[in-house]
């Protein structure tokens, strides 16, 4: 059974990792803990739903199933659509709320504002889409038995692949592109970066775009493997923070490893403790790690 728990942990950890990347960047570069980040996952999932229903004329849900998967080529289009739409939403929030607050108040005020924004976003979903759970496809996908008695769903394996592609392209973006390099410079030392001619305002927008796109993909993945409901992101907020903080703010691979650690520890914990204590596991983990490394596993000491 341990192999099954490990497989489950990696698969659920991948979703957490994708969501945590944006959170980690915003903690480091935007310099506040954005509690509304998880709502971007929710919106990402629902944007994909909107896409699917608008294009319903061209085939069901996310397209005619291809191979062992529950979706078709439309899935990729939905992925792009939701990333753009969610980024737009994030930029609107940035302009209307967070950017204004940055000028008038300290970063803790932004944290509280993000609480309020989260409440707002979550319940707007409830008002617009209702509280019923929704599925992209009602067909149930059955797990495939792998050697070692491990069962996984084909969709999940595909999504793990998507995660890897996203992380690798993010890595290339951060190390090769001009914007990515500037972004790292801003994260290291915003004042120095500003003096060296980096357009910090544009970098901040890029952080929102990257964070929102990651969240959108994570939300879509979550919606595909579990379900869509207004509390989708809210129920993930703790694991997301756990992953971002475990990894250390601003670290791409830190967030990914943090996500995997959270996913694995949650799934493995039920082998030793009652399932009812499971939600506490990521926290005890954070506490243990922060006790010894207050800056997170991959964070830099201040």
């Amino acid at each position, binding site marked *: 059974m341990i192999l099954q728990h490990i497989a489950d942990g990696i698969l659920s950890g991948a979703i957490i990792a994708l969501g945590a990347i944006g959170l980690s960047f915003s*903690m480091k570069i935007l310099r*506040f*803990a954005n509690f509304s980040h998880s709502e971007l996952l929710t919106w990402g999932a629902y944007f994909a739903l909107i896409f699917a229903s608008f294009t319903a004329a061209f085939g069901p849900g996310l397209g005619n199933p291809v191979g062992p998967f529950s979706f078709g080529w439309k899935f990729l289009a939905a992925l792009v659509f939701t990333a753009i739409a969610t980024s737009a939403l994030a930029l609107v929030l940035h302009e209307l*709320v967070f950017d*204004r*607050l940055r000028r*008038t*108040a300290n970063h*803790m*005020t932004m*944290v*509280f*504002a993000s*609480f*309020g*924004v*989260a*409440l*707002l*976003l*979550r*319940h*707007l979903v*409830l*008002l617009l889409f209702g509280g019923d759970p929704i599925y992209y496809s009602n067909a149930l996908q059955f797990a495939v038995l792998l050697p070692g008695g491990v069962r996984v769903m084909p969709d999940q394996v595909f999504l793990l692949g998507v995660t890897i592609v996203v992380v690798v392209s993010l890595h290339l973006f951060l190390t090769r592109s001009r914007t990515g390099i500037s972004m790292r410079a801003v994260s290291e030392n915003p004042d120095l970066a500003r003096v060296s001619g980096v357009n910090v305002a544009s970098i901040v927008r890029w952080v929102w775009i990257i964070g929102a796109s990651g969240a959108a993909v994570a939300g879509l993945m979550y919606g595909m493997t579990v379900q869509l409901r207004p509390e989708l992101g809210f129920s993930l907020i*703790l694991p997301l*923070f*756990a992953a971002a*903080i475990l990894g250390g703010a601003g670290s791409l691979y830190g967030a990914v490893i943090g996500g995997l650690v959270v996913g694995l520890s949650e799934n493995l914990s039920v082998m030793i403790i*009652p399932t*009812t*204590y499971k*939600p*506490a596991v*990521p*926290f*005890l983990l*954070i*506490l243990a790690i*922060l*006790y010894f490394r*207050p800056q997170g596993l991959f964070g830099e000491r201040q």
Partner: protein
Amino acid sequence: MIGVLSYLIFFMILALVFGIAVLGLNLQWGYTGLFNAGVAGFLAIGGYAMAILTGPSREAVFGGFELPFLVGLIGAMGAAGLGGIIIGLVTLRLRGEYLAVATFGIAVTIQLVCLNWEYLTGGTLGLIGIPNPTHELASAPLAQNAIFLAMVVALTALVYWGLQRIVNAPWGRVLKAIREDEIAAESLGKNPALIRLTSFVLGCMLMGLGGALYVAFIGFVSPFDFLPIITFQIWTMLIVGGSANNRGAILGAIVVWAVWTGSGYIISQIVPPEFQAQSGAMQAVLIGLILVLSLLFRPRGLIGEKLHVSRHAKL
């Protein structure tokens, strides 16, 4: 007429019970800069301590000592304070959001313990029959609530006075110094670790007091009373009211609780019946909007911080 009065009394009891917890948070955040996102956990400790100390004994559940109300209050503060010491020692070396996430996690863990450790907390059923002291003093519900309100007002006033005494004083000056520049304070001979811990523990004790009063008033305690949303509520009260100002904290508790509950009232009045089921979502949207707008346009809260700290150093 009686109805309005009766409701107002009831409303004020809950608002001030929250107000006491807000005062505790104000000590931690407003004056010391400690981002405690685990308020619900300390309310829970206080609430359960009250239930265990003063409640009736139950089969297969610890406690039920049927001790007097006052013992319950002191015990609740003591338990929350003890919890504060342990948690503070583990977490207070963290800063900002890191402290927030750690304390948040602790509150979640406390709530899970309340939910699952049946021997101590009664588990999911909670603990019932916790005596409300005013029921022995009066028989009419209105009179009972009036007495309870008088008691809560007196306690709030006492807490307010006690806090004003210590924050508008050299002690409060050190808190503020640590909040503004810990390294400078340290280099001037202040011991930040000790002072942060003291402030944290005192704040936790007030949260415990708030939890105990809530439980005694409601007569029942269950894990579902201490969901993370309570922490959010208490924080909103502090930020809207004005952090680092004890009057602001109390005012914030009253105003935010009025908005929180009043928005339900208003929505139930203006929303047509066929959309009633959406009223909850509308209410939450409204609350979120009010919070964001108040932060945008009044980031210092209704009553902001005062410049002078010690009352002996006014110019």
